[in-house]
């Protein structure tokens, strides 16, 4: 149990997915303009990450390790993830239009995104068991959500600020991310 808590805290704060591991930077920059979409994006990502963690662990354990084909990890993971996400997207679109508008439209963005594949690769690297993998995937998603929502809050605030023209948009986002990373450094050594 304590083990799971540590995995959670580590992935959310100490080794925050975005600010420390540099994963999922593209959506972090792209979808952090407004708080609403940022929250949706965070939730969609958390969902996909948890799902991915489960599936990737299964694929790795029962297909790749079983057949001794670890070198196919990258290919098989991305294949599984891409297909899964597409299925989920279609499913949501059919089942609930509001849910699709809130979450579904972000799903294609997430598929081809290092955040998801990163989860799969990391959990193999760290040799987590099945439950740990799911918790890891979920916490990584929460960490991503935390970072993107903070960033969206700050960027909405910066809409009102007098940022030098050439630094508007991505540059200032990067710099804020740098400041955030500085602030998160205080947690190093926590776990």
């Amino acid at each position, binding site marked *: 149990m304590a083990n799971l808590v540590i995995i959670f805290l580590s992935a959310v704060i100490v080794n925050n997915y975005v*600010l*420390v*591991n*540099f*994963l*999922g*930077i*593209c959506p972090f*920059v792209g979808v952090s303009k407004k708080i609403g979409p940022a929250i949706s994006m965070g939730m969609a990502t958390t969902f996909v990450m948890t799902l991915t963690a489960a599936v990737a662990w299964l694929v790795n354990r029962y297909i790749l390790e079983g057949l001794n084909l670890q*070198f*196919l*990890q*990258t*290919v098989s993971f*991305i*294949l599984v993830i*891409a*297909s899964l996400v597409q299925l989920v997207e279609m499913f949501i679109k059919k089942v609930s239009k509001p849910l699709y508008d809130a979450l579904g439209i972000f799903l294609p963005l997430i598929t*081809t*995104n*290092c955040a*998801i*594949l*990163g989860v799969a*690769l*990391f959990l193999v*690297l760290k040799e987590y068991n099945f439950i740990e993998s799911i918790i890891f995937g979920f916490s990584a998603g929460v960490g991503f959500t935390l970072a993107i929502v903070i960033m969206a809050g700050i960027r909405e605030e910066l809409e009102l600020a007098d940022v*030098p*023209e*050439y*630094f508007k948009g*991505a*540059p*200032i*986002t*990067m*710099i804020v*991310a*740098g*400041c955030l*990373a*500085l602030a998160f*450094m205080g947690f190093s050594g926590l776990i």
Partner: protein
Amino acid sequence: MASKTSHPKEFLKGLWDENPVLRMLLGLCPTLAVTNSAINGFSMGLAVIFTLVMSSAIISLARNIIPKEVRIPTFIIVIATFVTIADKMLAAHVPDISKALGPFVPLIVVNCIILGRQEAFASKNPVGRSVIDALGMSIGFTITLTILGSIRELLGVGTIFAVQIMPLSFEPWMVMVLQPGAFLTLGLMIGISNWLNARRAK
């Protein structure tokens, strides 16, 4: 190679006008993650050059036989194949660097630059043009990463490509090789490139 001379712009645009990192903001994850030294950035760039050029060539060749509905999964598989090859090659020849780059080499698979070029260019253009486009983009990427890595290495360690540049009395700014340094340097680089671009436009 004949088409290269006929389309020099196709090649040059990747270096500045459509520089994947500074102007299109693509592939930021590896850009940030592996540029704690110049050599890491450069190696990453090489891996990307290999992957992008090879997959562009293949996809451009096969562009007419891939059904529209499954093109993205197909692209990904092709890319993933080359990424795996690049990864294994790095691991075999330069194990130290491969270790430093960690999972970011396999993560090239989902690098938006590569998929983006397939979707936007290679799947619509003949092989020659696609390869030139891929070369321009990936070399632009490599140059940017190398510069970024050099700046961070210089300030963070005092060296560039492990060659001591700063006087030994210089106390390195550790932060530059840590995560905040990556974000801050890249932010400033993009800002400055915006400024240069605006000046050039005038």
